[in-house]
């Protein structure tokens, strides 16, 4: 782990060609988020009316509070009936102007809770699936950060929970995303490995300067990674702001 951190620090900042140079992103990699929408599915409605700047956002709340729905709305996998979503100055959807950027053009890296690695492809093919990789992705750096070199030729069925999580992170990051959406990334990782994944996520946030949206129901995790937290309950935002202020 020390090696991982040290090796990474040497390469810090290579990513800011993308992050810092883009509208809606500040020099420290923080991104402007606009989440003003409502999305109804059956009897369940998720609504948010927030605009903020953050490097890592925690979506915090109990199961069924709408955390994943918000991630999927940002990724474009669910469409709000009303409102607007913008990340880093880029409007992803706006019902007022009938705008909805197709999923494939949203430039989001999405790691769902069940990671969903393609079971028929080996690790390398999973990781390199995003063909139209953006020039800013520093591949050797990423491989090093995620400890992928020894995993590349493995089949995904033989990977441990932590390894799957790292491969899924790599797959998402190889596409050069504007934002990384993470759904309970530590849920399937054993306690011993959680620290490692958290370090990796911190490096992604600080060194690669990719903003994170992080779903969790653990206040400790939210505090460890996020500089902005949204507390959800039954689809509604009950509090939002600095993690120290709004988390239990």
């Amino acid at each position, binding site marked *: 782990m020390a090696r991982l951190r040290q090796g990474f620090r040497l390469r810090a900042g290579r990513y800011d060609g993308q992050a810092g140079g883009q509208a809606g992103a500040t020099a420290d990699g923080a991104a402007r988020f606009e989440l003003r929408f409502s999305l109804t599915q059956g009897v369940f409605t998720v609504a948010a009316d927030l605009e903020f700047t953050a490097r890592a956002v925690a979506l915090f709340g109990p199961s069924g509070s709408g955390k994943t729905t918000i991630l999927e709305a940002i*990724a474009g*996998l669910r469409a709000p009936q009303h409102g607007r979503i913008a990340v880093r100055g880029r409007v992803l959807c706006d019902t007022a102007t009938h705008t909805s950027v197709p999923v*494939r053009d949203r430039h989001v890296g999405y790691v*769902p809770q069940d990671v*969903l690695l393609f079971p*028929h492809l080996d690790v390398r093919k999973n990781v390199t699936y*995003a*063909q*139209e990789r953006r020039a800013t992705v520093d591949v050797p750096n990423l491989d090093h950060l995620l400890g992928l070199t020894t995993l590349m030729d493995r089949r995904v069925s033989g990977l441990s929970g932590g390894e799957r999580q790292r491969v899924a992170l790599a797959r998402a990051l190889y*596409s050069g995303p504007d934002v990384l959406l993470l759904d309970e990334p530590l849920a399937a990782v054993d306690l011993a490995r959680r620290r490692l994944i958290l370090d990796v996520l911190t490096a992604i946030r600080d060194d690669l300067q990719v903003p994170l949206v992080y779903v969790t129901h653990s206040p400790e995790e939210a505090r460890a990674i996020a500089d902005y937290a949204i507390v959800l309950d039954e689809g509604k935002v009950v509090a939002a702001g600095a993690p120290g202020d709004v988390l239990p």
Partner: protein
Amino acid sequence: MPTEIVQIALFTTLAALAATVVMLPPGIALAWVLARHRFRGKSVVETLASLPLVMPPVATGLLLLWLVGRRGPIGKMLAPFGIEIVFTPAAVVLAMAVMGLPLLVRTARAGFEQVTKRYEQMAETLGARPWRVFTTVTLPLASRNILAGALLGFTRALGEFGATIVVAGSIPGRTRTLAVGIYTYTETGQDARAAALLAVSVTLAFGATLIANRLAHVD
């Protein structure tokens, strides 16, 4: 084994293989559409796709004869190019493909239905366009069922009789297949030849079904 028997066995196998190749593109497309789309008239399409399974094969053969015969709508279109289908090996392949198609469609459709849509969504978030999603995610994940369906279609084609005899006849060395051969030899009292073809039929069908079943049941 008499050369005639060998020729019939080879011809039937090759025609069934050709029929499988012919039925794969429309079969996969139809299976995918039925598995993944809702549209007006879907039940009609579903019923039409199953029709050759339940109709008397001879009736399907007659329908094909009308369609591709010299005065039929498709036959008329092909005639100016000098293409004639009825009573040719092409008619054998056509009859086999039409009769095998429903089995392929049913099995492949189940395969597409089993593919979790979320894998496709993941591919989309990684920038893949629909065709790439289909060829790199959907198709490979459904491939076991597609293969099993193709094998079932192939076995159905191997044993095809009713439609074949109507649209292709039983021309020795040209359109005579295993099933048609067995019938013809039995009718004309050539029992030894009929028995030899029977043995070939059983062997081929057994092997193909065994593989199809294994594909369908193994994880």
